[in-house]
């Protein structure tokens, strides 16, 4: 919101560039919002929600949502670098939420299968034991 928080990156970029006037000019004006990054984060969150992350990876999904909201706030404040970082982190969180949901679901399926096998094994042992 205020200008002081934006000053250091701009100063740093300006100092880092020796003679590129165009770049200096673009840095002097407000940088564009990281729209693609934010869209990718949003998509990753939707994917995670579809993958039942609310149930299997609630913490990661919550982090992704919080960071996406913060990123949007940063865009409003024209803190584009922070917005981009938050967007990237949000996407990484959401992708982790998806991956952990898949892993948890697979583990649950296996656990059920294993229990089923154990029960079946015991049953067959008991049956053959009884008829012997």
């Amino acid at each position, binding site marked *: 919101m205020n200008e002081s928080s934006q000053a250091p990156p701009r100063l*740093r970029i300006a100092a880092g560039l020796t003679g590129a006037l165009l770049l200096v000019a673009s840095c002097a004006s407000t940088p564009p919002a990281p729209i693609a990054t934010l869209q990718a984060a949003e998509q990753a969150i939707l994917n995670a929600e579809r993958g039942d992350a609310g149930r299997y990876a609630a913490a990661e999904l919550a982090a992704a949502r919080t*960071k996406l909201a*913060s990123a949007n706030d940063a865009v409003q404040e024209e803190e584009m670098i922070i917005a981009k*970082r*938050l967007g*990237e*982190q949000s996407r*990484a*969180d959401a*992708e*982790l939420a998806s*991956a*952990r949901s*898949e*892993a948890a679901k*697979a*583990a649950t*399926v*296996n656990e059920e*299968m*294993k229990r*089923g*096998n154990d029960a*079946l*094994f015991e049953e*067959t042992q008991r*049956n*053959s034991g009884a*008829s*012997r």
Partner: protein
Amino acid sequence: MNTTSYFTRYRAKTLIAAAVSLVLAACAAAPLKSTGAADARAKLTVLQSDANLANRAPLAMQEAEAAVVTAEASNTDEEQAVHLAYLADRKVDTARARAETGFAEDQLAKLGEQRESIRLDARTREADIAQSQVATARAEAQVARTDADAARTLAAQQAEELQRQIDELQARPTDRGLVLTLGDVLFRSGMSDLNAGATNSLEKLASFLNHYPDRSAIIEGHTDNVGSDDYNQGLSQRRADSVKSYLMGHGIGSPRLAATGMGESQPLAGNDSATGRQQNRRVEVIIDNPPPAL
């Protein structure tokens, strides 16, 4: 993480203000190792050396590797470095989760195979049991058949033996049982003592009764009509008793033997001829049939 990066920034500012040269020296020597890139690298190394997981999610693993390399290379901007380390950390975790999913899927396939093998084992075992039951039943039937055969053979042998014994006795089967007629040659005229020649027939009778201990015998004495009724009654009784005594002397218990004098009341033939009278002078032994049939 975000708050941490801000904190780091403020701390850096303080350091710059305090001792610029020191900060510069520190940045040059060990650039931003504390940002977490090293931690991400360590986690990735653990994942890569896990035999069950290392090769399961190649794409996610490559992305994680690339993110860690990027984080490690970043040494200009601490905030950016912290950010890249965070991304690397998340990508390593994501790669681990993807690899675990792949591993779980392989495990699921194995569990499926295991289930099939349990089912197959159970079916095999059931078939084995059924087969062994059939075999047992067959063996039992064979034993039963053999037993029945043996019983039949034994019964046939016993029947044969009985017939042989009956033939030996020269007894004739009647409704009352086996009737054995001992002629008067066993006794001297008017006497009740047994002749020496009588023992052959009586030995066979004793042997028969010893062989079939469930049979008992009625011994009946008969005479012709020569002499008084009383005399003949007494004589027939004495002769019957004499036979009974003989049998008792050869091991037959007295409860199995009944001796009765019938006198001249039941002639077999006419008393008007010598031949008829001889037929009438006799002792009959009736051996009763045992209650259960063979």
